[in-house]
């Protein structure tokens, strides 16, 4: 597909907002699709310990734990980027500092993922029998 150039850049708007818009969308869809499954697996608790513990054992598998780390990252990204969107929406003049705010929110996300990846990563490796 040919790139179209607008006065702010290439394809769509070409600014950092294009990428955060896409990431916001992807993380949002991922989280709601997981939520659909998660409501069902949690509801199994109403069928007693035997049924629930069998279902929740799925979450104790190391491969699923890798996906779980992705879920945590998705929720966190969506939350932090959502705050950024609200800053732009409620204080429109802040869009003049869009690049700074985008860098700040992405930085905050990556920074908070450091300890989380350490903690959950350790647990993944322990479950996988590596540690």
């Amino acid at each position, binding site marked *: 597909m040919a790139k179209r150039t607008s*006065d*702010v*850049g*290439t394809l*769509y*708007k*070409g*600014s*950092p*907002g*294009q*990428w955060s*818009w896409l990431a916001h*969308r992807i993380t*949002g*869809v991922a*989280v*709601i699709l997981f*939520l*659909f499954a998660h*409501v*069902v697996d*949690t*509801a199994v*608790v*109403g069928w*007693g*310990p035997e049924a*629930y*513990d069998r279902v*929740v054992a799925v*979450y*104790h598998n190391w491969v699923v*734990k890798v996906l*779980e780390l992705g*879920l*945590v990252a998705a*929720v*966190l990204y969506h*939350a932090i980027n*959502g*705050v950024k*969107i*609200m800053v*732009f*929406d409620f204080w*429109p*003049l802040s*869009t*003049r*500092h*869009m*690049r*700074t705010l985008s860098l700040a929110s992405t930085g905050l996300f990556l920074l908070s993922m450091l300890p*989380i990846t350490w*903690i*959950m990563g350790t*647990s993944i490796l322990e*479950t996988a029998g590596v540690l």
Partner: protein
Amino acid sequence: MTVEAPDRPAPTPPRGGGSRSYRGRERPAGGFELWSWLFMRVSGIVLLVLAVGHILIMHVIDEGVDRVDFGFVAARWGSPFWRSWDWALLVLALIHGVNGLRIVVQDYVRWAGLRFAVNMFFYVVGFGLFVLGTVVVFTFDPSEWPPTA
């Protein structure tokens, strides 16, 4: 990533709410879409506490999901505070998420009939899960399964 859009003012100078050249979606002028727009932001602020808190408590701190089993849920839901937290999270996350899906569907499903069908599918699934989750959160009684049984 290319740095083709340096930090310069938007081509349309900000007049009033002039962020339109940078954002994908403008604030709707009124009616249902404005309420939807506002709901996403208000529920987003609440979910910042409910969802991020839930994620950190259940998946990160204190052994994370490893410690979650029937006994854990029974102890947790022994407190009305956590039952209320989880129910509020259920309701807000479902509406926020299904409304988000509606907006995504609006962008990508262009044939009106299919769009209606896809949206209806998500509304029905969302409502069904709301009912299921609500019933379980409020009727769950671990004493139906005594530990010795």
